C-alpha cells in the first residue's frame, strides 16, 4: 500500500489509486468537477491541480497515479491561484442563480468556489446559449448551467454503453447534446437518469424532486430480478427521491429507468385502500372483519365439503420471502394441500427442472458481477439490456473494458447485438438444434474439456448420440443460421478461458423449455465452464423475488428449500415444525390449476399479488376459469384484471410499506425495509395471511418479519446462516448454511451439487404450433425497457407511458411488404385463440417471418393470442412461439 503525504498529512493510498482518490478517501477536500469514482480518469476540469515534489508543473490529481513516498501540496497559494482562475472562468460561463437552483447546497461548483474563496466574478459573463430541454418526462437538461465536466457523457458511454449524448462542436460553442441536437426524448437515451445523479451542478436535474427528503431508507427495487439496491428518500409519507444504493461499493449504484423513476405506483390514487366484497355482482368496500370472516368461511366450507385439494393458491414473486413462506405454510398446514404455485411456472419452471437434473440446483450458478471478468459471454433468448438492464451493464463492460467476446443468439436484433461478435439469428423455437450444432462443432474440432468430462460429469455418451447428427449444415436448414456463423461462434466459445451462458425467457418459455435448458447445461459442461469464477450458467430471473418464492417452497412439488414432500423424513420434519400432518402428493401447477377449475376439481382460489388474467397464455380461457371458479380471493395492491373477477379483494402493502427480504437472480438475499405506512386500510401481507390462517383454526404467531426469517433459517438449510442482523451489512448469497458462512458467490466449486454433472440427450423437437398457410407468421412475446409485466406497477408512472407507446407490434419490412402493411398502420393480429389490434412498427429488429408483441398492455393483450401448450416436464407454456396472421385493420381506431 503506497504511503504519500498530502499537505503534510500522511495518507495510506490504495494501490493503483490516483492522488485525488487518495486525498478524498483520507478526507482531504481537493476541488474537482469532472472526477467521478466510477469513470476512467479524465483530467478535464483542471480544478484538482496540485504540486507534487519532483514533478514539473501542476499535474491534475485525478490523472496522476500515486507512488510510494509522494509529497503532495494541495492547499498552497501557487496551486490555489491557478485553481481560482480556472473556477472563475467556469463560473463566468455558468448561469449562477444559486438560490433558485435545486442543486443549491449540493452543487459541487459552489463548494469549489467557496473553498477557493471566490466572492465576486471579475470576468465578463460568457455567451453560452441557454437551451433548456424539458422533453424527457423525468428530467430537465438546462445547458445554461452546464460546466462541461462531461461526467454525463462519459457515464452514458463508459458505464451505460448507450452513448445518447456527446460533446458537440468546439471552443466556446462546445456543448453536450444528443445526436443532431434533437430533444433528448427523441434520442437513444434510455432515461435511466444516472447522468442526472452524476451532474455536479444543476444542469441536469430531476423533475418532481424538488423536496429534499427528511429520511433515507435502504431497500431493494421491486421490479426485475437484478435486485438493485435502492435508497428511498421519504418526506411526509411520500417517496420524494430515489437513488441507487452505493453503500457496499462506494460508487454510484446503477439503476434503470424503472427503478429510478418508476415508483409512482406506491402513491397512486388507484391503490386499494379497503377490503372489497362482491355484493350483487359489484365489488363494494367492507371492513377487515367482514372480509376475513367471509374469506376464511369460504375456504373452510370448500375444504370441508370437497377436501383440501379443491383449494389452490398462487403465491407471488413480487412479495417477500417471509410472505411467500407463510403463504405456502398456510396452504400446506392450514388448508392441507400442496396446490401452491406462483408465476415461476410461467418463466423459469424449465430452468428449475433442467438445471436441477443436470447440476443438482436450478439456481444461477455464478454472480452477476463475475460477468465482467468472463472471456466470452453467450447470450441466448435474453433481451438483457431491456429486461435486465443492470445485468446488461456488466456484459457491456466485459466487452468494452476487457475485450470479451459476446455471442448473441436471438431472432430479434436486440440492442446488445451492437456489442456482439456473432449474432445468430435463429428461428424461434429452434434453440435445441442450434445448441446441438454448436456442441457438434466443439467436439469435432476437439475443443471439448476432456478432463472435466471424465472427472466431473457423466452420461456424455448418450448426449453425443443425439449431437452427432446435428452438423452445422443440418442446423442451418432448421435454424436459418449460416453454418459458418455456427462454427465461428462455437470455436469462439470453446476457446475462451472462462465462458458464461446468459439466458432467459427466450429459452425457457417453450414446449421444449426443459430441453433448451438441458442443452445449455450440456454446453457449459462440455467446455468445463461450471464451478469456476466468471463462467457458468446465468438464468436471469424475471421478478424481483422469483428466486426467493421458489426457495420458500411456493411450488406444488417442493417443500421449502427444494425438498420432496414424498420424502418421509422431510415431511416428518416439517410436520414437527408446523404441528400439522402435511400432504404427500405433489399439488397442481399454476397452469394445471386452471384446467382443474374447468373439471370442477378446484373450487376455491387464493391469489396473492399475481395477475394471471393478463399474464397467462390464452387469457380468454384464463378469464373463463376465473369466472367459473366458485370462490376467488385476490390479495393485491391494485384492482388488477384478475382482482376484478374476485369475490373478495384484500388490499396488501407495496414493497415500500413492509419489512422483509427479496432474493435476487444471483441468490442474494437482501433486506427490504419499510419506508411508509400502507395507504388507508391496506395491511401488510404477513398480517393478512396470519389473520386468515387464524380464522381457519391455524394461528401463526410471529411478532414481525424477522421472526419469520428465524423460522426460515431453521427449516431451510441453504438459508441457515441468514438473519436480519447479518443482512444489515449487505446481502448474502445462499447457500449460507450457518451464521459464520460468508455466502456462496458461485456454485458447484470442486463438484456438482448432485455429485457428477449429468448430460442429457436433447433431440430437437418442433414447437407446438408453427406457421402454416392459414397463419403464416410466428408470434413471439416479451418485455420492453420501460415497462414491466402486466403493467400493474410500471403503468402507474405517467412518464414511462410517454416513453413507450403502448400497443406496437414489430413487423419485419419484408413481411410488411408481403402483407400490405405500412409503418404506423393499424393492424389486426389473429391466432387460433383470439385476435388483437395493434399499431405496426415496421422494423428490421424483427426477424423475417416473425412478429413481436410486448405483453405489458391491456390494450393489446398479447396473451389472447399465445398458445397454452405446455412443456411436458416443467409445465411451462410456450409464450414464445405461436402462429398468427397479420393484416391491416379495416377500421382505424
Amino acid at each position: 500500500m503506497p504511503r504519500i503525504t498530502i499537505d503534510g498529512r500522511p495518507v495510506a493510498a490504495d494501490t493503483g489509486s490516483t492522488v485525488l482518490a487518495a486525498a478524498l478517501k483520507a478526507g482531504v477536500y481537493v476541488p474537482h468537477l469532472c472526477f467521478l469514482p466510477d469513470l476512467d480518469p479524465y483530467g478535464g476540469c483542471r480544478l484538482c491541480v496540485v504540486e507534487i515534489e519532483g514533478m514539473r508543473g501542476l499535474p491534475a490529481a485525478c490523472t496522476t497515479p500515486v507512488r510510494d513516498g509522494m509529497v503532495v501540496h494541495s492547499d498552497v497559494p501557487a496551486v490555489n491561484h491557478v485553481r481560482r482562475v480556472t473556477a472563475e472562468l467556469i463560473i463566468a460561463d455558468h448561469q449562477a442563480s444559486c438560490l433558485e437552483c435545486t442543486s443549491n447546497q449540493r452543487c459541487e461548483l459552489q463548494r469549489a468556489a467557496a473553498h477557493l474563496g471566490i466572492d465576486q466574478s471579475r470576468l465578463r459573463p460568457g455567451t453560452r446559449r441557454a437551451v433548456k430541454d424539458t422533453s424527457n418526462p423525468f428530467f430537465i437538461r438546462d445547458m445554461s448551467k452546464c460546466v462541461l465536466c462531461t461526467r454525463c457523457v462519459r457515464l452514458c458511454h463508459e458505464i451505460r454503453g448507450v452513448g445518447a449524448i456527446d460533446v458537440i462542436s468546439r471552443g466556446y460553442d462546445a456543448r453536450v447534446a444528443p445526436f443532431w441536437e434533437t430533444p433528448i426524448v427523441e434520442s437513444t437515451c434510455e432515461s435511466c437518469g444516472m447522468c442526472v445523479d452524476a451532474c455536479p451542478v444543476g444542469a441536469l436535474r430531476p423533475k418532481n424532486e424538488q423536496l429534499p427528503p427528511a429520511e433515507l431508507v435502504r431497500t431493494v427495487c421491486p421490479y426485475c430480478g437484478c435486485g438493485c439496491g435502492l435508497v428511498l428518500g421519504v418526506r411526509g409519507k411520500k417517496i420524494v427521491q430515489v437513488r441507487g444504493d452505493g453503500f457496499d461499493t462506494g460508487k454510484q449504484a446503477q439503476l434503470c429507468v424503472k427503478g429510478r423513476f418508476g415508483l409512482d405506483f406506491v402513491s397512486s390514487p388507484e391503490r386499494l385502500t379497503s377490503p372489497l366484497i362482491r355484493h350483487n355482482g359489484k365489488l363494494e368496500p367492507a371492513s377487515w372483519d367482514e372480509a376475513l370472516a367471509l374469506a376464511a368461511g369460504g375456504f373452510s366450507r370448500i375444504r370441508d365439503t370437497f377436501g383440501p385439494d379443491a383449494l389452490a393458491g398462487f403465491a407471488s414473486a413480487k412479495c417477500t420471502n417471509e410472505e411467500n413462506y407463510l403463504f405456502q405454510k398456510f396452504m400446506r398446514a392450514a388448508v392441507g394441500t400442496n396446490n401452491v404455485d406462483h408465476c415461476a411456472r410461467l418463466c423459469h419452471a424449465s430452468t428449475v427442472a433442467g438445471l436441477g437434473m443436470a447440476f443438482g440446483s436450478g439456481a444461477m450458478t455464478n454472480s452477476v458481477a463475475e460477468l465482467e471478468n468472463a472471456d466470452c459471454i453467450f447470450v441466448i433468448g435474453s433481451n438483457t439490456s431491456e429486461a435486465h438492464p443492470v445485468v446488461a451493464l456488466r456484459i457491456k463492460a466485459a466487452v468494452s473494458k476487457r475485450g470479451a467476446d459476446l455471442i448473441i443468439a436471438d431472432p430479434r436484433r436486440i440492442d446488445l447485438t451492437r456489442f456482439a461478435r456473432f449474432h445468430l439469428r435463429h428461428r424461434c423455437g429452434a434453440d435445441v438444434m442450434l445448441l446441438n450444432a454448436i456442441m457438434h462443432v466443439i467436439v469435432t474440432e476437439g475443443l471439448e474439456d476432456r478432463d472435466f468430462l471424465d472427472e466431473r460429469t457423466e452420461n456424455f455418451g448418450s448426449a453425443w448420440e443425439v449431437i452427432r447428427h446435428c452438423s452445422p449444415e443440418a442446423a442451418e436448414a432448421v435454424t436459418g443460421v449460416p453454418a459458418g456463423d455456427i462454427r465461428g461462434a462455437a470455436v469462439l466459445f470453446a476457446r475462451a478461458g472462462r465462458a458464461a451462458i446468459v439466458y432467459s425467457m427466450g429459452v425457457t418459455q417453450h414446449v421444449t423449455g426443459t430441453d433448451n435448458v438441458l442443452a445449455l447445461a450440456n454446453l457449459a459442461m462440455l467446455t468445463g465452464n461450471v464451478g469456476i469464477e466468471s463462467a457458468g450458467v446465468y438464468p436471469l430471473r424475471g421478478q424481483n423475488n422469483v428466486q426467493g418464492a421458489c426457495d420458500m417452497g411456493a411450488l406444488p412439488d417442493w417443500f421449502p428449500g427444494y425438498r420432496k414432500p414424498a420424502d418421509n423424513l422431510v415431511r416428518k420434519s416439517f410436520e414437527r415444525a408446523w404441528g400439522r400432518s402435511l400432504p404427500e402428493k405433489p399439488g397442481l401447477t399454476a397452469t394445471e390449476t386452471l384446467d382443474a377449475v374447468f373439471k370442477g376439481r378446484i373450487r376455491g382460489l387464493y391469489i396473492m399479488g399475481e395477475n394471471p388474467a393478463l399474464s397467462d397464455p390464452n387469457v380468454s380461457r384464463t378469464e373463463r376459469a376465473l369466472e367459473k371458479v366458485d370462490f376467488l380471493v385476490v390479495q393485491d395492491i391494485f384492482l388488477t384484471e384478475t382482482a376484478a373477477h374476485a369475490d373478495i379483494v384484500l388490499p396488501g402493502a407495496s414493497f415500500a410499506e413492509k419489512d422483509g427480504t427479496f432474493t435476487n437472480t444471483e441468490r442474494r438475499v437482501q433486506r427490504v425495509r419499510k419506508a411508509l405506512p400502507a395507504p388507508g386500510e391496506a395491511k401488510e401481507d404477513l398480517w393478512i395471511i396470519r389473520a386468515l390462517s387464524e380464522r381457519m383454526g391455524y394461528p401463526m404467531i410471529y411478532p414481525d418479519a424477522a421472526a419469520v426469517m428465524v423460522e426460515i433459517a431453521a427449516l431451510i438449510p441453504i438459508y441457515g446462516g441468514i438473519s436480519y442482523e447479518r443482512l444489515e451489512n449487505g446481502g448474502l448469497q445462499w447457500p449460507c448454511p450457518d451464521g459464520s458462512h460468508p455466502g456462496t458467490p458461485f456454485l458447484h466449486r470442486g463438484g456438482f451439487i448432485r455429485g457428477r454433472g449429468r448430460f442429457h440427450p436433447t433431440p430437437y423437437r418442433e414447437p407446438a404450433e408453427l406457421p402454416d398457410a392459414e397463419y403464416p407468421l410466428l408470434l413471439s412475446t416479451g418485455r420492453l425497457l420501460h415497462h414491466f409485466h402486466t403493467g400493474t406497477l410500471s403503468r402507474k408512472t405517467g412518464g414511462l407511458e410517454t416513453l413507450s407507446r403502448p400497443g406496437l407490434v414489430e413487423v419485419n419490412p419484408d413481411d410488411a411488404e408481403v402483407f400490405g402493411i405500412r409503418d404506423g398502420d393499424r393492424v389486426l393480429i389473429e391466432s387460433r385463440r383470439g385476435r388483437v389490434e395493434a399499431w405496426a412498427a415496421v422494423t428490421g429488429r424483427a426477424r423475417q417471418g416473425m412478429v413481436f408483441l410486448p405483453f405489458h398492455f391491456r390494450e393489446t393483450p398479447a396473451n389472447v393470442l399465445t398458445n397454452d401448450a405446455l412443456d411436458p416436464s416443467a409445465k411451462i407454456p410456450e409464450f414464445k412461439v405461436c402462429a398468427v396472421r397479420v393484416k391491416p385493420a379495416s377500421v382505424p381506431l
Partner: protein
Amino acid sequence: MEDIVALRLEETLRRYPKSRSSLIPVIQDAQSILGYLPREALLKVADYLGVPASAVYGVATFYAQFHLTPRGRHQVKVCQGTACHVRGGRSVLEAVKTELGIGPGETTADRKFTLERVACVGSCSLAPVVLVDDRIHGSMTPEKFRKLTQVSAAKERARHRVFRIRMVFKIPAADTPLFKKNAACAGKVIPETAPYSFTGLRQV
C-alpha cells in the same frame, strides 16, 4: 437518401474496418460522395462502425472540414486574419455578404455559393484576400468582388450542362429513361471521386 447515393455510401463503408478508428476517414469519404453529411448518412456510419450516433455527430461538428448542410457549388472564403483586417477585410466581408445575400456559414438559395470567414490563408502579402474555391484573389475590394461573381456566373452558365449532372439529388423512379440517363452520366463523370464535389467535376 436516394438509393444510388446510399449504395455508394455502403460501398465506401465496406472498405473500412468496423472500428472507431475508421470514423474520420469514413465521414471524409461520405462527405466527398454526398457533398455534405446528411443525418441519414451519419446514422448509417454510426450503425456500421458500432459507434454511438452522438459520437459521430460530435466528431462531425468538431472539425471545420465537415458540413452538415448542403454546400454551394463554390466556396467563398473571406479572410479576416490580421493582415487582411488592417487592409479592410471587414468591408470586403460586408460587400460579399450583401452581394451574395447570405452570412458566413450559409449557402445561397440556388446552392451556388457558400460563404465562410477564415482566419489567414497564408497569403498576407496579397491582403485582403478572398478565396473562391481553391483560387486566391488578392488585393480585394468590394468592386472587384462584384466583378468576380459576374465572371463566375458567366462561366457557370457555360458549364451548366455539366453541373446539371451533379445536381441530380432526386433520382427519378427506376426504369424511366431519365433515370437511366442520369445513372449512366453519373457513372461516367465520376470514376473515383465524388459525383457532387467540385474537384470531381473539374476532371471532366
